[in-house]
């Protein structure tokens, strides 16, 4: 059958997606976070890694994240349509058919896992497969529409990339990679709950049981503060591993102080005050959370750079180390 006459309407032809639309289906902004944290996990790991294989490993981890992003858009098209933040995505906007997003997601997921097994090792590939499964099945299909703890548990999938990068370089899971995982895992709830404080209407409209929708904003503020406190020891513990050091510790202390102070301010704010200034403090805390994670991983890279350059604190206490 001719491609121009295969049962499509003129409108469908006119809205046929460009290549860029398919790229946006892979959630490039989420991919950039995955690429960065996976790259840090791989680069700070001990031992040399062939640059071509390192590049390929990070690329396939990113591709896996992209595949799971496409599957997420396929499944969530109905609720994305009701949220301002997501209504313009290619599937809810009608520029790409849901089935196309699904097929692309499945294909990219399979290719990325298979290719990572070839580029790195089976442990890294297995972790990537688990990440995709967790994000698509456990978070997107099951938890997201069912419980306000959705992003707490679902955050595990976003926290795994540095562990995959570490496994790609070493073939092991170590204390260091588990702590990098925990850092992102504990960071995710305050980050997303801060977002939901000023995007609550979106989630209400879509019927997503975010904590702000089910328990209200004051309870969410208390949860943000509690999780921020739990995040601090994880952040500091990384300083006393083989990948930590004084630069990381100084960075973590400053960022933890800022983050706890920000969460404390959110805790004390009334809803009237927040609404009056357009949730300025909440937006500031959300931006701070982005810098918080980014700078922690930059500090780990700096520590690695110093070690490679032969500049390291000789008697730095490494209290936590070793492979499982």
């Amino acid at each position, binding site marked *: 059958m001719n491609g121009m006459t295969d049962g499509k309407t003129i409108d469908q032809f*006119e809205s*046929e997606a*460009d*290549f860029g639309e398919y790229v946006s289906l892979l959630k490039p902004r989420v991919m950039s976070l995955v690429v960065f944290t996976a790259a840090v996990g791989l680069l700070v790991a001990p031992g040399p890694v*062939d640059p*071509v*294989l390192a590049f*390929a490993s990070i690329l396939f981890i990113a591709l896996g994240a992209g595949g799971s992003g496409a599957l997420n858009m396929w499944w969530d098209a109905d609720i994305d349509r009701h949220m301002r933040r997501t209504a313009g995505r290619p599937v809810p906007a009608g520029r790409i058919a849901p089935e196309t997003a699904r097929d692309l997601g499945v294909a990219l997921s399979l290719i990325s896992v298979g290719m990572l097994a070839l580029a790195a090792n089976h442990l890294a590939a297995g972790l990537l497969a688990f990440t995709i499964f967790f994000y698509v099945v456990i978070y997107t299909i099951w938890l997201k529409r069912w419980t306000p703890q959705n992003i707490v548990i679902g955050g595990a999938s976003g926290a795994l990339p540095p562990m995959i990068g570490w496994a790609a370089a070493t073939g092991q899971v170590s204390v260091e990679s588990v702590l990098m995982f925990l850092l992102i895992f504990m960071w995710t709830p305050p980050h997303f709950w801060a977002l939901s404080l000023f995007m609550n209407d979106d989630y209400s409209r879509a019927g997503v049981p975010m904590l702000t929708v089910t328990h209200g904003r004051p309870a969410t503020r208390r949860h943000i503060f509690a999780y921020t406190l739990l995040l601090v020891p994880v952040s500091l513990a990384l300083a006393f591993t083989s990948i930590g050091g004084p630069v990381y510790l100084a960075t973590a202390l400053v960022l933890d102080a800022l983050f706890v102070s920000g969460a404390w301010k959110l805790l004390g704010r009334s809803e009237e005050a927040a609404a009056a200034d357009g949730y300025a403090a909440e937006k500031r805390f959300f931006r701070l959370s982005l810098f918080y994670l980014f700078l922690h991983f930059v500090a780990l890279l700096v520590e690695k750079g110093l070690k490679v350059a032969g500049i390291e604190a000789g008697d730095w206490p490494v209290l936590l180390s070793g492979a499982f």
Partner: protein
Amino acid sequence: MPISREHELLKRRFRRNLALGGVLILFVILVFLMTMAKIRQGSLMQAFDHTYRASLAPLDESRARPENDSEQDGTGAGPAGETRR
């Protein structure tokens, strides 16, 4: 419907196909470079393929004759089937 509209659609499809072609070419180059990197590392490039090959059998150190034995028997070669990768 004006002809120019159909033309725009074809152009868009062409751009998409071109980009996909570019991605596939980059993928082929990447696989080639990965293969080169694996060979440089000395990784095994063969796998089981419907028949046993001596080159895939693990080296049995206990059965392997020492190098000087080979020199003594004048052949200069190890025993048949004892392969070294």
